[in-house]
């Protein structure tokens, strides 16, 4: 197994773990942290891609992804805190207005 395959496998496993966590948790902050794990997995993949193929451009893109994850964490945490207004122990299933 080459090191590229190891990193690829790690990235895939991390993405799967994060996805499972995103599905399981009802607490909004825990949900967000699972999403952050998925984001990091993707970033790892980009950095590997920079090494194999993309060069400095891809590495710069990985930096931009870092900034994006910061913005997303900000908004997500604001949403999570807004959910705390409804009940003491928040639940993402609370914020549903659709009747489908």
């Amino acid at each position, binding site marked *: 197994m*080459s090191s590229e*395959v190891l990193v690829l496998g*790690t990235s*895939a*496993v991390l993405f799967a773990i994060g996805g499972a966590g995103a599905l399981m948790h009802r*607490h909004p902050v825990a949900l*967000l*942290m699972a999403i952050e794990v998925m984001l990091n997995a993707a970033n790892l993949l980009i950095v590997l891609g920079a090494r194999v193929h993309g060069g400095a451009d891809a590495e710069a893109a990985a930096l931009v992804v870092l*900034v994006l994850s910061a913005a997303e964490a900000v908004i997500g945490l604001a949403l999570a805190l807004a959910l705390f207004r409804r009940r003491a122990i928040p639940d993402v299933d609370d914020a549903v207005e659709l009747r489908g």
Partner: protein
Amino acid sequence: MDGLFIPLLPGCIVAIASALGVVSARRPVYAAIFLLVHSLSLAALFGVLSAAMVAVGQIVIYSGAIVVLFLFVVTLLPTGGRELAPTGARLPAGLVAAAAVLIALAASLAAGAIPVVTPGDLSVVAVGHALFGSLLVGFELTAPLLLVAIIGAVVIWRRHEPRTRTAVPAKATEPRTLVMHR
């Protein structure tokens, strides 16, 4: 196995273990600490993969700012971070989805071949050239993106009082100098 395998292996193991910790921690505080370890391990991986700039960025931006933000929110939670248990269908659904994604990714990996190349110039200077050269527009757009995120966070937090609406604006009865209409 090539030269980088042994240095990468501990990083990968710690990353996977801490990710498992993030998703399975009992309390959000533990999850946040696991997330910190996770991001630091990824920084180590980036460093080994010669992406020095991104590694430092991961430590400073991610571990140093984002995870700290998570920790702040978690420690300021009014309930001390207790959590509801997952509902009946969620646990198997999560495992099924994770398995499906893993299988699909493994199949894609097996179907393709990864070219073994010597890495190009990944130094900080080269990244700087890329950021201010070919990625300039995207780089500049991250600034308004962050601004929008800040404004959005404030807007989401504010409660909206119902605003009373008047009908047709009243006519001016005497001359005024400069009237800014509300």
